[in-house]
């Protein structure tokens, strides 16, 4: 579960990214976070993955108070949070299977266990035939599926998707959202997806949180832009 209580975050340049935010996301939920540029979406993601610490209030994720987490405990904490990004952030010199294996190697998993897990993931993201391809040989949609594969390789409880369809055409975007739904349904992974894609939000109705100027101005289970 994710629970933000009265969270405020300001940067040294004086920008107040988040103001007195209260938010609760239950295990297994699929939530859209939408808002204009500078609304505080990125800061929310940074607070959740432990990159930033709130100035005020508490951020509790899976029972862990992220703000008081010691530096040396951050890596272990992050293994329970998968992240995917608009720009994919794949390692260009590694193949698809090596990119996925990378997330497992850093935690010291044995080669044999990695091999089995990577095979499962490749099947899930439907990229088995591309296992030995390099990122620059793949389409945008395929690259994003590799990123998703890498993010869920550790079987995290929470998956944060930062504009995952931002660089994709509508057809590929549909593929990605379906894949995220599948992960959410099959593994009970909580999904927090930051997006600008109105069409997707309208078509796949989920709980929708809207941020504006660092405030939560809308939080509805009805979903979709049209419901606003």
């Amino acid at each position: 579960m994710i629970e933000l209580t009265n969270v405020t975050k300001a940067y040294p340049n004086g920008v107040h990214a988040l103001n007195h935010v209260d938010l609760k996301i239950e295990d297994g939920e699929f939530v859209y976070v939408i808002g204009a540029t500078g609304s505080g979406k990125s800061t929310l993601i940074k607070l959740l993955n432990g990159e930033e610490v709130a100035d005020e209030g508490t951020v509790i994720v899976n029972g862990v108070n992220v703000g008081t987490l010691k530096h040396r405990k951050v890596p272990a904490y992050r293994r329970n949070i998968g992240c995917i990004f608009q720009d994919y952030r794949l390692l260009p010199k590694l193949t698809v299977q090596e990119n996925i294996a990378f997330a497992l190697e850093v935690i010291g998993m044995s080669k044999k266990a990695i091999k089995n897990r990577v095979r499962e993931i490749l099947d899930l993201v439907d990229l088995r035939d591309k296992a030995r391809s390099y990122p620059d040989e793949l389409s945008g949609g395929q690259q994003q599926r590799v990123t998703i594969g890498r993010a869920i390789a550790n079987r995290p409880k929470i998956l944060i998707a930062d504009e995952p369809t931002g660089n994709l055409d509508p057809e590929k975007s549909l593929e990605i959202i379906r894949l995220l739904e599948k992960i959410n349904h099959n593994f009970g992974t909580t999904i927090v997806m930051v997006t600008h894609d109105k069409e997707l939000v309208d078509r796949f109705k989920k709980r929708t949180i809207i941020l504006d100027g660092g405030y939560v101005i809308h939080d509805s289970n009805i979903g979709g832009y049209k419901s606003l």
Partner: protein
Amino acid sequence: MKRQLILLGYEIKYAWLGIRRHFLLSLSALSAVAIALLLVGIFLIAGLHIEHFSNNVEDELLIHVVLDPSVVDQSELDSIRTKIQEIPNVVQVDFSSKEEELQLMIKEKGEAFAMYEGEQNPLGNAFFVSVAHGDDLSAVNSQIDMIQGVSSTAYGGISVRELVEMLKKVRTFAAIGIALLLVLSFYLIYNTIRTTIYSRSDDIIIMRQVGAENSFVKRPFEIEGLMISLCGALLPFMLIWWIYPKFYETMNGRLFASVFELIKPNTIALWCFGLMIGTAAIIGILASFLAVTKYLKVKR
């Protein structure tokens, strides 16, 4: 422990990938280390030999005093011995009979002199006089020369000693040059690691994102520096290991018209291996550790 070993395996893998990715940069650092350490190796061999020669010269502070062939009477011999012993700085006087002198000559110049054995031996009796220091040789020698009954005196080592002194001066200048080269190698490895860190900033972000511990992020860079420097050391070591025995064999184990004895190849190999690999390891670890500490800040 098992997990740490598994992690180490992956860290080595990513260090190798780092070298491959910046192959030319790594190669330039490796070449600098190799050249510096080749010079270190040559300098070491020269230094070991200078030390070896110096010791040999110190061991040979002897004056060979040859007496007139007519001096055969024991009382005459005793008288000359006493006079020599009274000269300041003389440590020891050993008698060498004319038969022993002939055996020395046969040993030194060949079996042809064996024909003089027996009654036909034309040599005189002799003394071997030890002095305390090399500096005393000349003065003691002059005084012995004036004793009646002494035919000739000889001592080796003046030219050798001068050569050794000259080599010692060369050694000082060489040491300065080598030190500069080692600093250059250090800087090149430092720079390679710094560039690698910059160019892999995306990888580092991803590593942190997927939960890599700081040690896992840092260690591949440190291993990379170590690998570069060790490979840089291995090349000149192999070269010396290959060339020195051939040189030793060609020279028949001696140098400068057989004046000096060369050090055995196995001893040289052991010294070179220890010093070159040790120096490389220190340079590699230190340079990469400093680069990582400065340019790879610990973040949340």
